[in-house]
């Protein structure tokens, strides 16, 4: 990214007040405001039906916003048809044209832009070399494996040097190992080309691995827009905490809001804990406490902490490098603690009463479930 003009720091894409409904009754996207920075890798993450794909399709031009404005490079693209937006796109099912060779597929965006045959061929080979498939230019898509097809689709979306590339769950159809390999490859291509990527996925691991920033979608609303680390370490609400990574929840009531961003919470079984006040309504309000399994220790197996709760060991599961211990703690029968496995040390036994301990800053007090969805 080169800071050549005054607008270099402006966002490349700006959604302002975008709403979308298909049937005039339910909103698929509710009041979306989102800035996409130049050169960043932004992931739209969310469960199916959360509005992330609709958002991508509105950006690509295949769906029209019911309300609101989308700007690309400072200009509204409401009346710009998809083929004039200059946005590269990679689809989940690859969408390679079956009647064309690999080279013709990659050269397609150049052909429709009127480049000469020689120029087309040279650029297409170059793009194929970038995804390490230059030797397969003469084949047909059906003769390639899924991973190879996806790389061709990637080369095709990048060959005309778009400033923005959209990817709609591009790795969804690949097996786990290949998917992980392709994640790194896409990330490296993004880094070396400096192109802006908007990536849609429902796989949180994929989002954490690849993205500069992640927008977590649920119910047509961005729940949190943050870096992978920010999302994982400080989830802003219950949905994000449970959707990203593993999570233990306890319910309680805020007793007292303390200085420097902490609060005291009385759990539903009467015990008190100190938690970071991330998203609470104030003293007396119901709250959900969220803790990562690896941030909780069983007393005697890790450092001591300010919070200490008693629980009963229900199950221990061996995972190679770590052990997962499921306990019943403060009314939650599925409270999981993740601890390093040490072959020489005794493990907590099933049925044993133990204390779990965790730091106040690792316990986030978040919004409470609405009355209707309380479990």
């Amino acid at each position, binding site marked *: 990214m080169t800071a050549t003009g005054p607008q270099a720091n402006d966002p490349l894409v700006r959604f302002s007040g975008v709403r979308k409904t298909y049937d005039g009754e339910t909103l698929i996207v509710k009041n979306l405001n989102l800035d996409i920075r130049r050169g960043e890798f932004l992931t739209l993450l969310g469960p199916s039906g959360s509005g992330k794909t609709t958002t991508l399709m509105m950006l690509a*031009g295949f769906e029209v916003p019911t309300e609101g404005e989308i700007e690309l490079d400072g200009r509204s693209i409401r009346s710009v048809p*998809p*083929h004039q937006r200059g*946005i590269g796109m990679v689809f989940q099912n690859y*969408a390679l*044209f079956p009647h064309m060779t690999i080279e013709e597929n990659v050269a397609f965006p150049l052909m*429709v*832009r009127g480049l000469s045959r020689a120029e087309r061929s040279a650029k297409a080979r170059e793009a194929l070399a970038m995804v390490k498939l230059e030797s397969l230019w003469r084949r047909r898509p059906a003769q390639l494996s899924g991973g190879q097809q996806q790389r061709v689709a990637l080369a095709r979306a990048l060959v*005309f040097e778009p400033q923005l590339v959209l990817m709609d769950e591009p790795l969804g159809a690949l097996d786990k190992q290949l998917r992980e390999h392709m994640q790194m490859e896409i990330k490296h291509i993004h880094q070396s080309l400096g192109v802006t990527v908007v990536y849609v996925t429902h796989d949180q691991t994929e989002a954490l691995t690849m993205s500069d920033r992640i927008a977590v979608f649920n119910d047509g609303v961005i729940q949190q827009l943050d870096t992978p680390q920010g999302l994982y370490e400080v989830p802003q609400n219950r949905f994000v905490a449970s959707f990203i990574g593993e999570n233990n929840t306890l319910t309680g009531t805020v007793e007292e809001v303390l200085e420097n961003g902490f609060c005291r919470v009385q759990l539903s079984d009467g015990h008190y804990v100190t938690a970071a006040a991330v998203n609470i309504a104030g003293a007396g309000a119901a709250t959900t406490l969220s803790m990562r399994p690896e941030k909780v220790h069983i007393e005697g197996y890790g450092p001591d902490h300010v919070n200490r709760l008693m629980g009963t060991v229900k199950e221990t599961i061996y995972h190679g490098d770590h052990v997962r211990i499921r306990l019943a703690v403060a009314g939650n029968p599925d409270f999981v603690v993740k601890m390093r496995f040490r072959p020489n040390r005794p493990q907590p036994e099933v049925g044993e009463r133990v204390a779990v301990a965790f730091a106040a800053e690792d316990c986030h007090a978040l919004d409470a479930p609405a009355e209707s969805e309380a479990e």
Partner: protein
Amino acid sequence: MSESRNPLKARLRRAERMRQWKAFGLIAPLLGFLLIAFVVPIAAMMLRSVHDTELREVWPNVTEAIGGWHDRTQVPDEAVFAALAADIKASYAQKSLPTAARRLNYDLHNGRSLVFGTARKLPDAAENWTEAVISANQRWADPETWGAVARASGPFTGYFLLAALDRNRTATGKIVKSPPEEALFVGVLERTIVVGLAVTGLCLILGYPVAYLLATLPPNRGNLLMILVLLPFWTSLLVRTAAWVVVLQEHGLVNNALIWLGIIDEPVRLIYNEVGVYVAMTHILLPFMILPLYSVMKAIPPGYVRAARSLGATPTTAFVRVYVPQTLPGIGAGGLLVFIMAIGYYITPALVGGAGDQLISYFIAYYTSSSVNWGLASALGAVLLSATLLLYWVYNRLVGADGVKLG
């Protein structure tokens, strides 16, 4: 020996054989039906187009004796004339002379009167049969007359096939074009192929958008449209053709509507000419174009056109460069189906076409049932079958058999 050496292989063979027999047993009824109802009649028809024993059965002597006629520029020798005289008398007595007369009439101008006239004037006995026969009718002095007898003497002949291509053979065996007033069938074959191509083209132009609509509409409305497309299938072919007669006739719906709208002053001739044939045949064959196209289009994910659009193609370019090429198997299958059906169509052109618009199948029917010249009918059928197979072969070379997708 080998079985004892490799019992596993023998067992496998036995197990497989059992399975194969079972499979064969299941398809045997269909195979038998096809053999009796399809293969045998076609083979019999092909045979009849080259097998010719009509004259041989009623005139055994002359058809035998003419085998010894070698110098085809001269009339045959006395023995052949004598055999002819004997055969004419014998067949006259057995009342089988009309059969011989009809067969020679195919090949000889006024062959019927030649045979009957000769039979009437032939003396009971003669010393020189050559003179006697020639004096009964001068045409027996022409080697070409004898050529026709030789060609009809069987048991195998190329006469019908040549006739079906407007060709015939001279007495010396040269193949020449028939005189223009007798040349008919090449023109008919050309017309049949032109009509077939035109109807195929019309079906494609009309059917492609319908198939596209069917494939892209949401299922509930798509199904309704599909029923409308299939509706003609549930109506008798004859009824549909008759309906076109009602609609297109001089005071039919179309003409009355056009006059009422003031577009024309007098009824336009829409039926019993080419217009009627094209309209009715296109309508009847349209579903055979729509259905293969639909099945191919249904299998094309909408993502391809979207991908093309996102890569910078205008809607038109995306359609022409990405969508249409993927429907080629459907275009091929539908086109082939419609074309093959069109060139064999009989009832519709027979009912709505004029005298000059009849297709080859009309002449096959005519020679089968009206003129009872089965040899020529079979030869025309063979020509039609060959033309169909030839076109299929050409198509196959161009598109490839795997390019055809029916259903």
